């Protein structure tokens, strides 16, 4: 399979790799996907409670090159955005930016889910009621 130059660039130079402290009240963590499916994304954001601006974003991804690129791109995009702006990011935007082929669309869906899951987690910490759109994996 041929990858687009942008996917290769993100794979070779992933942006914002790492972890933020899970317990920090201003950090939202999204953990989506499953090892059995070959894709797991962890996306974390540090959000300013006053301005609702995403000041920092980090990711770690288990998955193919397109999954790594989708989550790397997602961290780039959410940084500096407000929570509402980040929620408006759609998987199709990622597909377009990375020129993902049809078999890799699920990678972009997962990245969108990860953004939403991280925000849900942050809102939960803040005690804000949200409709459960996408939530993270949990430990039994």
């Amino acid at each position, binding site marked *: *399979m041929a*990858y687009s130059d942008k996917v*290769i660039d993100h*794979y070779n130079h*992933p942006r914002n*790799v790492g*972890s933020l402290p899970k317990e920090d009240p201003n950090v939202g963590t999204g*953990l*989506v*996907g*499953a*090892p*059995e*499916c*070959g*894709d*797991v*994304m*962890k996306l974390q954001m540090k959000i300013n409670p006053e301005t609702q601006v995403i000041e920092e974003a980090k990711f*770690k*991804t*288990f*998955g*193919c*090159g397109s*999954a*790594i690129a989708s989550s790397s791109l997602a961290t780039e995009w959410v940084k500096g955005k407000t929570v509402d702006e980040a929620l408006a990011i759609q998987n199709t935007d990622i597909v377009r930016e990375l020129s993902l082929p049809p*078999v890799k669309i*699920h990678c972009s*869906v*997962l990245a969108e*889910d990860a953004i939403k*899951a991280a925000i849900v987690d942050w809102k939960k910490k803040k005690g804000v009621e949200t409709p459960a759109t*996408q*939530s*993270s*994996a*949990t*430990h*039994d």
Partner: protein
Amino acid sequence: MAIQLPIYMDNHATTPVDPRVLEAMLPYFGEKFGNAASRNHSFGWTAEEAVENARGQIARLINATPKEIIFTSGATESNNLAIKGAAEMYREKGNHIITQVTEHKAVLDTCKRLEKYGFEVTYLPVEKDGRINLDDLRRAITPKTILISIMYANNEIGVVQPIAEIGKIAKEKGIFFHVDGVQAVGKIPVDVQKDNIDLLSVSAHKIYGPKGCGALYVRRRNPRVQLSAIIDGGGHERGMRSGTLNVPGIVGLGKACELCQNEMAQESEQLRRLRERLKEEIFSQLDEVYVNGSMIHRLPHNLNISFAFVEGESLLMGINDVAVSSGSACTSATLEPSYVLKALGVGEDLAHTSIRFGLGRFNTEEEVDYVVSRVVETVRRLRELSPLYEMAKEGIDLSKMNWKAS
């Protein structure tokens, strides 16, 4: 010696044509272009002589007689001809076929088609090491069983089945025994007499011969096996496979068999040494790596490893100057991870992280060392990127997680 990139280490998929094979073939693309079925002029005789010579070369490699070799377009056709041909020919005798779950699709899908036509097929499971259980086989046999089809060695994990034991059981019960020998013939000793094999599929391009050429061994005595043709026409190959013979391809297959026979002992030792080096180096430098399938009953040139927490396709992307293959779903058209690994009981999480190394005649120690360094470096880098590796290091039991797959 400097290493030439990219390095080819995917010799279960195909092999490069050996220059000596190519040399033998070339005249048959040129001045020796005759049709082997032309019986009335020297062009035909020259071609026929070359074909008969190749038949002998193949027969010698597997301890058969030249008349028992039928040429085909490749092992997929050989498998189809063996199974469909025997099923149709012996339909009156019974409608039951036994095979096993890690066969190549050329066998599995052929059996599935026969099921549509009223045949019953038993797909034996495999043990954790990738081999069938002989008691399962004995129990599966019924008075209606006409054929047992079991591969000599698996194309993904290189696991060698207990062929001689299966052959013995088949013979005792009077059931024909077909073996897909694609990965084993030319690599390890295959003897149709000793193993009681009645039908054996062979491919040229897995043994440094050309693509588009294969053979089927069809036993002629003790017992004599008859097959219904699946391709009708001019009645070539004793009526079992019509169609003008691919003379250059057949010459190449013959030459490839001869080379394998002459060099197998030395070559398999060399490959085993390289494979052990590859394995030991990887295992000494990385944690959480697992071999898939038996290390004892295994082709000398195969290594199939799961690199936990690193998805296979992303690993391939990182070692893009090395040609290997992965059991990850992302590299297949179906988005399902390897059915072979699943059959062994390898979890889907680990199946997604598997890489198949297929060493070959032209690989060197320097290449193995280079591959090791690229693999180790890429696995380490991707583990730094892997949330699963991080969680495992934190002591979280990943199997107890409640994953939210989309």
